[in-house]
Every structure is written in C-alpha cells, then in structure tokens.
C-alpha cells in the first residue's frame, strides 16, 4: 500500500482543482481563443503584419517606453520604499497612502491630468519646453504616464522585504568596518535585489499593457508615438479583426518571453544560496569533522 502523505490542512485536491479551473477560465480560455482566431492567418501573414513598418515602430515605442518607465521606478521606487520603511516622519501614513493612488485613479484621468500639466501652456510644460524638452505628445509623454501608473508595483513589492532585513546584519557590517555605502551595496542590496526584480517585472508588464493614460498624452503619431494597444484598437475600428489578433498574439508572445526571463533571473538570484545537497550529506562525506 502506498504511503499517503499526511497534511495538516485537508483539501489539497479540491484546492488544486479549483485553482486550475479558475486559471483556465480567467486566463487560458480567452488567450487560447485569441490564438485560435490568429491561427486563421498563416504564420507568414502574422509575421508580415508584425514586421510592417508601423507595427515595428509601435512595438519599439511600447516596449521601449515600458522598459524606461520600469527602470525609473526600479530606482526611485526603491528610494520611496526605503524611506517609508526606515524613517519615521510626520505625515508618513499619508505619503504611504499616496503611493496607491495610481492603482485607484481611472487611467484616462491620469493621462489627461499629466497631459495638461506637461502641455506647452501647462504648469510644468511652460517651464520645461523653453529648455528644449517637449514631454506632452511625444514618446517621453508615454514614459511619464507609464512611470506614474507603475510606481506602486515596485514600492509595494519592496516594502515587506525591506522590513524583513534585520538591523543586526547592518550592525554586524558596521562593526566589521564597512561604511554606510559598502553596507548598502554589499549587504542590503543583494538581499532586496530579487524583490526589486519582481517589482520591476510587474511594473514592466503593467506598462506594456497600459492604454488609457497613454493615449491622452502620447499624441499618437503613427511611427513616432503610437503604442501597440492603440494600433490594435485602430485595426479593430477598421474591422481588421485578424490583423488586430495577429498583433495581440505577437505582443503576448514577447511579453511572455520577457517576463519568463525576468522570473528565471529572479528565481536564480533568490535561490542560488538555498539549494545544493543537504548538510548531513556533506558532514558525512567530511568524516564527521565537525
């Protein structure tokens, strides 16, 4: 008789079944339908649509702006999370609540607000444009909107991890003669890096899919500031459903590959010092030298 592993909480089978059904209904079914629809086109046709000049430019703008926005948030989000965890200051709870606002605000409202601010006659735009920086209605406007939208992802991913760092570890580094900077670079940063990668990946994924805020600030010039989601919408408006689906499938594939790469990297950095063989084996091999 096979030994049945005993679990403290019952219902593993039920929970797993539920999870699989849930994920299938919510994610696999719609995406599968999309791929099925795209398969009405031949592989060659999909490639043709994806490699057209306008599509290529849109991919470049979408992924490029998302990457820049995620990088900006990776840096500044880390600072915000650090300050919010480590230092007490008046109004800290208020600032903490502010971080979540981009989650709650309708993205179109965010887009319109940012466009108004950065337009040539806006509060910020009127000082920036004379300096030669045009933000609204350029690809840089897209970066600004995406940075705004994705800020919470990095901050909220990092906060619990920074809270978990024992102050003893920093004190140990200081007592060994490390400067503040050395302590940060050699001790603290490696500890939060996996979480930073996760936050970065989440922000990047969200930015790639963002539509509402971008279209109000981007100017939407084909080849210059047109994002792929907008191109998909405009194809749909011309009843080119197959063309839209082809773009969607390519975008899905690209996003999946990028996220998978980030996840593998994140998994590797988080686990490289946890695996290997169990200690007892090593101890036995060393002849019980302990």
């Amino acid at each position: 008789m096979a030994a049945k592993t005993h679990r403290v909480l019952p219902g593993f089978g039920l929970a797993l079944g539920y999870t699989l059904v849930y994920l299938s209904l919510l994610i696999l079914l719609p995406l599968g339908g999309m791929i099925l629809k795209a398969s009405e086109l031949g592989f060659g046709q999909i490639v043709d649509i994806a490699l057209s000049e306008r599509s290529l430019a849109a991919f470049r703008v979408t992924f490029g702006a998302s990457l820049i926005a995620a990088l900006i948030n990776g840096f500044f989000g880390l600072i915000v999370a650090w300050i919010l965890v480590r230092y007490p200051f008046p109004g800290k709870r208020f600032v903490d609540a502010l971080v979540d606002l981009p989650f709650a605000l309708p993205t179109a409202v965010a887009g319109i607000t940012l466009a108004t601010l950065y337009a040539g006659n806006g509060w910020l735009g009127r000082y920036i444009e004379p300096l030669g920086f045009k933000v609204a209605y350029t690809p840089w406007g897209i970066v600004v909107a995406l940075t705004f939208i994705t800020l919470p992802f990095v901050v909220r991913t990092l906060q619990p991890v920074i809270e978990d760092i024992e102050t003893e570890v920093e004190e140990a580094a200081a007592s060994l003669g490390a400067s503040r900077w050395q302590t940060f670079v050699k001790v603290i940063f490696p500890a939060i890096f996996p979480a930073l990668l996760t936050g970065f990946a989440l922000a990047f994924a969200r930015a790639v899919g963002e539509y509402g805020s971008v279209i109000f600030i981007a100017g939407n010039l084909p080849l210059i500031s047109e994002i792929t989601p907008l191109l998909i919408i405009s194809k749909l408006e011309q009843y080119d459903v197959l063309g839209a689906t082809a773009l969607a499938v390519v975008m899905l594939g690209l996003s999946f590959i990028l996220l998978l790469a980030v996840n593998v990297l994140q998994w590797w950095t988080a686990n490289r010092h946890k695996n290997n063989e169990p200690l007892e084996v090593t101890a036995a091999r060393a002849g019980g030298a302990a």
Partner: protein
Amino acid sequence: MSIEIRNISKRFGNFVALDNINLDIPTGELVALLGPSGCGKTTLLRIIAGMESADQGEILFSGAEATHLHARDRNVGFVFQHYALFRHMTVFENVAFGLRVKPRKERPSDAEIKRRVMELLGLVQLDWLADRYPSQLSGGQRQRIALARALAVEPKVLLLDEPFGALDTKVRKELRRWLRRLHDEMHISSVFVTHDQEEALEVADRVVVMNHGKIEQIGSPDEVYSAPASPFVYQFLGNVNVFHSRVQGGYAEVERHEVSEKTTAFVRPHDIDIALQPLEDGLQATVQHVHPIGPLVRIELQHNSEIVEVELSRERHEALQLVVGQAVWFRPRQMRVFGADQLPRSTPEKQAFLF
C-alpha cells in the same frame, strides 16, 4: 585593550536601562555580564560596541576617549545571539567581509585574504564548509562562523551578546569551552552577555551581576557564588531556601541583643544536612517529594507550612533511603543573613540557626 566605563546612564523613554554604571575591564580578561532579561546587560554591551549611544558618561578604550566613536572605527568584534550572518554570501565571503571592506591602502591582497580566511576557518574547525551558504549550516556552526568573521579584522575587544542562547545544551557546553580556549589564544579582552548563571560561572574570569540597570556585584565566579553581595545575587545564582519568619522570631542572636531588625537568611539546597534521628539545633520536617535529577536527588521537605528544598548526592540518598511522608530532621551547614537594608550581616556560623 582595556575598557573603562564611567558613569554610563541610558534611558528608553521612562525605562531606565542603565543607571550610572562604572566598570573596568582590564586587557586580556574574559568578563561575563550576567542578569535577568531587561537588566540592561545587552544595552551596556551595545554601548561599548558603539551601536547605542549613552545619555551620560563615557567609554575609554586603553585610556583614550571613545564615547562618540562610530562602531566601524572602534575595532571591536561583535557576535550576535542570532548570528547575523550575510545570507547571500558563502561562509568564506562572510569571514572575508571585514577584510574586503577595508580602505584600498590597508586592504590585503586577494591571496592574503584567502590565507587569513582559511586560517580562521581552520581555527573554528570549519574550513571544509568554506563554499557553503549560512542556511546550510547548523546553529553551532553558524555561531562559529560568526566568531571567525568577527575575529577576521583582528579586534582588540570581542563582544558577544548571548552567543550561545539559541543553541541546544550539548552544543552550548562545547562552544563555551571552545570560546574560553579561543580567548586565551587570541590575547584579547572579551565581554559576553548571558542570563545563564552556569555559563557565566564556567567561562568567565570575572562575573558582573546586573539587575534593574545597576551592578549588584563584581567578582570572580567563586566570589559571586559563595559570597553573594546581595539577596538578589544569592537568588539569581542557583537555588536557595529563604527563611524569613524563623530568623526574625527565633533567631538567638537577634533576640539576645534585643534588636528587632528584620533579617532574611539564605541557605543553598546543597548546604542542608538531613538525618533520620533528632539533630542538635535541627528542625523536624516531613518528606514531600523525592526527585532524582541526574547526579543529584532533590528532596522537598515540609516544615510547618513552608517548603524547604534540599539537594543530596546519590550516595547520601541511598544511605538515607528517604520515602515520601517520612519524618526527618534537617540542619543547614552554612548560611548567609541579609538585613532589611539588603546588606550582608555577619553572623557566628554556629549560632546563626538557633531556633
């Protein structure tokens, strides 16, 4: 390097953690700060290390002012109760950390770092684990690595905060002996914090007993155990029987001089004799419980309404063959009496226990 602690006080809000502490730690000595939790011993250690700042007073290292020196400039090795190893670094890199963060001019070459780290790992007998990560080690191994890491920068002072507190009894005993040996080989001053009296008495050259932010007694392990300076020290170091009423009411010396001072007598459980026949100056009692504990047998006697704890050797117990409910006589061999002001009273040994 000697450490001098002058009038150090520290408060956390309304809580007085340290109240005007004065302590000298000469070079080469291994000192234990012993006390119950919350007595301020860890705070004192952290102030010596520069991780906490005192509200008042000063710290001198080898006679030089060090009160406001940053932790990284104090040349102090610190070992934490929960190891505080760098989880993402191998054992080798953990030990090498202190050498690698030195300013470029003082930093040893890679080959020199490798030699020194392997030497230290050899010293803690864990050189075969150099490529492992801390999560793959046992508690005892982690603490030895933490010690090697602290020793890598050749500190003048080694500070240990409950270093063996998180380990099981057997490992703890082994590491104690090993720490003592290491301390003697390295010729440094060491201060370690503990709440375990056995640990303090076994390892230290000198024991500093603390309570409520104050030093109760400083002395050799033998002094603090056999001549406690206060009732607190008596009760904290080992088991003790406390006799209030009898000393106050029936104590011959007190009555004879018509002094109505309230005193308390302390008797260690192993300082009490038990006999089956009536003893001169002895008291009668009934045996309540008999617990054999390892090499000792602990007997609980009931005298009037009070419980008296007695520890007998196995041989003595076998000779007596005590059973529960039996009537016996007991008499203390030695005792110590404290007055209401908590200061010891000298008492003629023989007459001290006349009832």
